[in-house]
């Protein structure tokens, strides 16, 4: 019997559950390696070569190279792991989060300063059209 996943109809949201975690194991472990300063240096020196040291899929590698965080998440990445890439790039968490919303950095920052994204109309996928 399938597990109950009541969170699949939350718009713009991917819950990092056991299935996503299994898919993203090597992607996330690669991210984890960036917590060491020497690995950050090696990654920055030759990103492709560094990624090729990991048992990631080609899609995952391309998503990392493109810094497409939504794609990384769809392929099993978790934001707390992916944040290590942002840190390596010198990006703040706000810049990373904003990059997934289709808004410019300034628009996103202004939205947060004025109280954030409203939950109204953002609870269920069917609300958005």
């Amino acid at each position, binding site marked *: 019997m399938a597990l109950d996943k009541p969170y699949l109809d939350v718009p713009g949201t991917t*819950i990092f*559950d056991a299935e996503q975690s299994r898919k993203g194991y090597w992607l996330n472990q690669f991210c984890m390696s960036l917590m060491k300063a020497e690995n950050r240096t090696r990654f920055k020196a030759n990103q492709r070569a560094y990624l090729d040291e990991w048992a990631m899929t080609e899609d995952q590698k391309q998503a990392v190279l493109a810094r497409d965080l939504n794609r990384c998440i769809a392929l099993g990445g978790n934001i707390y792991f992916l944040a290590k890439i942002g840190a390596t790039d010198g990006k703040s968490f706000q810049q990373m989060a904003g990059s997934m919303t289709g808004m410019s950095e300034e628009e*996103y920052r202004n939205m*947060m300063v004025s*109280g954030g994204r409203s939950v109204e109309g*953002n609870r269920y996928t069917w609300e958005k059209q």
Partner: protein
Amino acid sequence: MARISASVYTSHVPAIGAALDLGKSGEPYWQPLFRGYEFSKQWIREHQPDVIFLVYNDHATAFSLELIPTFAIGTAAEFLVADEGWGPRPVPKGIGHPELASHIAQSVIQDDFDLTIVNKMDVDHGLTVPLSLMYGQPQAWPCTVIPFAVGVVQYPVPSGRRCFMLGQAVRKAIESFDQPLNVQIWGTGGMSHQLQGPRAGLINKEFDNRFLDRLIADPAGLASVPHIDYVREAGSEGIELVMWLIARGAMADVNGGKPPRVVHRFYHVPASNTAVGHLILEDQA
């Protein structure tokens, strides 16, 4: 005997740590936030605990996907400050309380909570930002700390009900420790926030304030709120709020005593991507 004197609740947003470390706390963006903690810094000087039992979550720092504990108690003598990718925060290391931590582990496991015992663990912003908010920038933290990490990165996280019951078991464990220690229990994380996907930036002030109301007056009812309500209403990372229920479950009223006194309540939006909530509850003798 050891006793719990108070519980403290606060968000642990990493940008708050960065603002302090980089000397930005006086900037207009950050001023209203730090003002909300001025009372708390005074209060803790007057109510200095011997030990803080600090409930937080690890953000893919000490625990990668190699090992994913739901509840992990730090029993080490010291906890180093982790390099989370930006270099370690310039804050003091945590000094543990191995005797009390081991005592709590033994007691709580016998009460059916299967803790992971951790004798070596670096701590991240989840633990250090609450200490910075309450103590500012000292050379050393003025008391010992028992880190208690809750697995909220990979779903499913423990339920609110289980966290609440765990808090009760932690109180029982602390009260059976044979040294006259003043212990505070801190619940950290939250409030509403979502850090991922097109819905990133979600904030729900109504949900957050109702959570604070119920945490004070109806914690048992609040503990029955299912995961999906947190995710839908407070964002995928808002689910960190279940950790506050561990601290609340350890207060006297849940365990047959008097209701706690609310000495401080604060709410502010935003800190980076997150709504910040803060509460101090004192147990009444």
